[in-house]
């Protein structure tokens, strides 16, 4: 064994390039796999754990109290596919105000006597459960900033109801299923109903088969069929809740897994190639080892271990890098979403490590198996050159090309060793694909980001603040009243300002929609440039009052389509609107409704966060425009500022990760080429000597070696670039699928034909980059020594 150890050690030491290549490729595969795996687990694990603990509701259904009785709803527990249910609970929608007269968004409260139960066993995090009228337990979904959550014993007023009834907060709880924003005793709902609050019933179900949207929809249909028509007014699937709980992290998973898969395939190729190469240049050595009494198994093991040593080092480094990146990415999402997961998942690490080493061992073993099979006599008798063998046609063909002879000699190289060249073509293709893919992904995400920029200049109510940037959402700060603003004057100033190409104003409010349990955000527009603000997927943009544009998640949740009418409830007013188009609007996880301001005219909608978005004529200087407009606005309670196009942190993360992984993959591909060229020149060292003896200059040698990778590089690029496009489609499609969006063409189709050609040539760049060093080495080969090799 110690003899074997020595053989292995000297093998590793002698092949520095191969050792580095194996280490790097394994490191890159492990980094992306650990990162992808950790994020995948972290993005769903906390939710699934809590959901299981609480017997979460797979399906929450809202019913019209006037169209179904409690008894009818109880009977839905027997609908097919339902394994457990809770309710019916009476519900009411209220818009509370804190004791510091801060308005909270409208919430649905449910009448429940107990927090526990067989479905949605709510976790009390503070205080106690409601026991009497006038008490409320609030749901803290973790998204409200800690300071904004009402304290225990604070009082909530319901100013919309006659006599402004009040409720005292006696507890803070958490429902993972997001079934309600708060809970009161059932009798309380009756009191609120009597006061005129919109009320209904709620049923919570656990399903036999909850895994897919189709499963949940089937159960929903079964429940709907067992109650009177139109009694069911809304449902919520646990899958949607789960998706929302994961935030953006879930978007990283498809692309990290894509890189993980690329990394693993690349590792298999490179390692297989390196070991097979080591075996083929080492046939003589192998013969000697065998002659000395090594068994075939020992020889194969020696070569496998030779790959495993750098692979273990690479895997360890990759694990560290993967976990550090996971921590960085998750600390970011934790901050944004209030989750708290360290991101280090031991079993993911163990699984990736074991998987990676198994793949390496298996690949190396398969590639080294030939060494075990080689017959000693043959091996010792093997001549130094591979013989004319294959690829003569290529050699004859290339000799006719009107190019300098050293180049045409090099061009024919890859055809002499077809299998080896094929693996290098694949490695180059992976590199080119990775580059194509990550550039495409970046452009796609920038397109997504671009959908959120609505103009060049924004005009906000109030005086400019000393700090930079408006408060999030553009709304007034806590407790502050929005300044009174003369909208007509603002519009007049903007329209009169030289350089204005168009403008629109938007304002925010909430409405209820039949079919959706929670109130939805509305963006209401006026002005002439709103149409440019959204990427349309289907239909058209709004042209006037009574029309809305929504995103796919809204259509999915409400089971509607473009052309349908829906009823919006604003306080006690109902407005029927028509869906005229489907846009790509990531706001509010795709649930935001975009409409014309006129739609809400005559309702008591609380309009907040009014802002004006101005598009400038081309060539207009933004800063001087803003300065001039601010002068014009000096008499009005409003100010202009350049629209900030700060890229979302998430996109920065994705771009940085994609760039990092691409650099790694491309480097590995180039190193794979380097390794092949080193191998090739080592095998052809004698021919190189002959060439030199016949008068080949170092420059000619370099051009010959570089030419030897041109064909491989071109083919690799030609395969890799389209593969990268496919991968981008796949991953972007998957990102759309997990988030429930139909993506607009502008986000999906981002490659120009010219760009594709460039990415294709990227394969050539990788190949040439990888061949430069060994070409130089080949040029310096000592001729006299090479010719002595006999």
């Amino acid at each position, binding site marked *: 064994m110690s003899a074997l150890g020595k053989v292995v050690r000297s093998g590793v030491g002698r092949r520095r390039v191969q050792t580095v290549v194996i280490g790097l490729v394994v490191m890159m595969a492990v980094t992306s796999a650990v990162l992808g795996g950790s994020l995948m687990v972290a993005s769903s694990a906390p939710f699934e754990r809590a959901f299981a603990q609480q017997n979460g509701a797979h399906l929450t259904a809202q019913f019209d109290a006037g169209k179904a009785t409690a008894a009818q709803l109880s009977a839905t527990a027997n609908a097919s596919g339902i394994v457990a249910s809770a309710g019916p609970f009476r519900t009411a929608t209220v818009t509370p105000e804190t004791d510091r007269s801060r308005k909270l968004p409208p919430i649905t409260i449910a009448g429940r006597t107990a927090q526990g139960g067989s479905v949605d066993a709510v976790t009390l995090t503070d205080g106690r459960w409601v026991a009497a009228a006038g008490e409320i337990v609030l749901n803290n979904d973790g998204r409200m900033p800690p300071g904004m959550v009402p304290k225990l014993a604070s009082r909530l007023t319901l100013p919309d109801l006659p006599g402004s009834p009040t409720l005292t907060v006696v507890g803070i709880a958490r429902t993972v299923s997001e079934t309600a924003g708060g809970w009161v005793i059932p009798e309380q709902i009756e009191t609120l109903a009597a006061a005129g609050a919109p009320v209904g019933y709620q049923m919570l179900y656990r399903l036999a088969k909850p895994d897919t949207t189709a499963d949940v929809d089937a159960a929903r249909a079964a429940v709907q069929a067992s109650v009177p028509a139109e009694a069911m007014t809304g449902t919520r699937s646990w899958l949607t809740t789960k998706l929302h709980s994961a935030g953006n992290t879930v978007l990283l998973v498809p692309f990290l897994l894509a890189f993980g898969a690329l990394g693993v395939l690349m590792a298999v190729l490179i390692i297989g190639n390196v070991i097979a190469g080591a075996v083929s240049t080492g046939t003589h050595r192998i013969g000697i080892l065998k002659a000395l009494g090594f068994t075939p198994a020992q020889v194969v093991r020696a070569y496998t271990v030779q790959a495993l040593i750098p692979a273990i080092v690479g895997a360890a480094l990759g694990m560290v890098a993967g976990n550090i990146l996971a921590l960085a990415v998750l600390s970011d999402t934790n901050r944004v979403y209030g989750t708290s997961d360290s991101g280090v998942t031991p079993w993911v690490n163990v699984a990736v490590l074991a998987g990676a080493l198994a793949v390496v061992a298996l690949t190396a073993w398969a590639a080294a198996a030939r060494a075990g099979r080689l017959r000693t006599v043959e091996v010792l008798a093997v001549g130094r*050159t591979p013989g004319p063998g294959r690829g003569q046609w290529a050699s004859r063909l290339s000799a006719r090309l009107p190019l300098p002879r050293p180049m045409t000699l090099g061009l024919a190289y890859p055809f002499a060793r077809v299998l080896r060249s094929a693996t290098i073509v694949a490695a180059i293709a992976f590199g080119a694909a990775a580059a194509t893919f990550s550039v495409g992904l970046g452009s796609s995400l920038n397109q997504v980001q671009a959908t959120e920029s609505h103009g060049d200049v924004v005009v906000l109510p109030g005086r400019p603040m000393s700090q930079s940037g408006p408060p999030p959402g553009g709304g007034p700060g806590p407790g502050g009243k929005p300044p009174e603003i003369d909208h007509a004057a603002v519009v007049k100033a903007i329209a009169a300002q030289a350089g204005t190409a168009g403008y629109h104003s938007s304002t925010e409010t909430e409405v209820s929609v039949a079919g959706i349990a929670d109130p939805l955000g509305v963006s209401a527009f006026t002005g002439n440039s709103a149409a440019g603000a959204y990427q349309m997927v289907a239909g058209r943009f709004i042209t006037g009052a009574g029309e809305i544009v929504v995103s796919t998640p809204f259509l999915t949740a409400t089971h509607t389509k473009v052309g349908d009418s829906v009823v919006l409830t604003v306080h006690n007013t109902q407005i029927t609107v028509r869906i005229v188009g489907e846009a790509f609007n990531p706001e509010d996880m795709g649930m935001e409704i975009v409409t014309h301001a006129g739609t809400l005219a005559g309702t008591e909608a609380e309009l907040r966060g009014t802002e004006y978005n101005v598009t400038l004529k081309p060539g207009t200087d933004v800063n001087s425009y803003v300065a001039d407009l601010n002068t014009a606005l000096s008499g009005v309670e409003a100010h202009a500022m350049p629209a900030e196009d700060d890229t979302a942190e998430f996109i920065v993360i994705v771009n940085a990760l994609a760039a990092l992984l691409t650099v790694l993959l491309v480097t590995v591909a180039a190193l794979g080429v380097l390794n092949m060229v080193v191998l090739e020149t080592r095998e052809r060292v004698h021919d190189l000597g002959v060439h*030199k*003896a016949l*008068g*080949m*200059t170092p420059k*000619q040698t370099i051009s010959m070696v570089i030419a030897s990778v041109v064909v491989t590089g071109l083919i690799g690029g030609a395969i890799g670039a389209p593969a990268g496009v496919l991968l981008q489609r796949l991953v972007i499609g998957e990102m759309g699928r997990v988030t429930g969006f139909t993506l607009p063409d502008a986000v999906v189709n981002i490659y120009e034909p010219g760009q594709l050609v460039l990415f294709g040539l990227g394969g050539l760049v990788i190949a040439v980059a990888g061949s430069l060093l060994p070409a130089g080495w080949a040029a310096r080969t000592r*001729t*006299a020594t090479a010719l002595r090799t006999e």
Partner: protein
Amino acid sequence: MIELGDVSRRYDEGPPALDNVSLKIAPGEAVAILGPSGSGKSTLLNLIAGLDKPTNGTVSVDGVRVDQLGEAGSAKYRRAKIGMVFQFFNLLDDLTVADNVMLPAQLAGMSRSEAQRRAAELLNALGVQRHAKAYPGRLSGGERQRVAVARALMNRPALLLADEPTGALDTASGEDVQQLLKDLHADGQTIVLVTHDLALAQTCATRTIQLVDGRVANDTGMVVSGDVR
């Protein structure tokens, strides 16, 4: 034409391969370098070809200080002045006979068609024209060496260097190559020939230099037009 001044070549270990060798070779000479294995014959030839550099001393060929040439310079020097023939032929196995022969000219920038014409001429002259499209692996040893000679003559070198050209051949093929070299010399080709085959030396060479342990042990002297100087 060739002038070696106090040339030594030492490797890291062992005694010097060449030890203070000085000699002159005139144009038109056919010199055989004789000596036992390991006496430095190939080293001497490599130094003349610019494939190796002396540790000490000077090597000039046709007024060119070969020992001072860089890599590119010595490649161009070989192209212009030197043709080489080796014991084991050193033909490129993956090129046809014709492509092998054409290579030195093509490296020097000759067009393919011109190189083809010249190669055909040489192969014809050497009697291996019918193998032009074959691969060297298919040829007999004697035929391979003829191809190697054709390749060496491709650029009309002033100097033909041959390192044990018959060493790997059977007797008949050896005699064949011997005759070929003799004919070349008769046509005025300067030849430096390394061999330990006395018959070859006697037939082809006008002068023999005996090397022992890297030193010139015996030199029959320069013979030009039959005169011993």
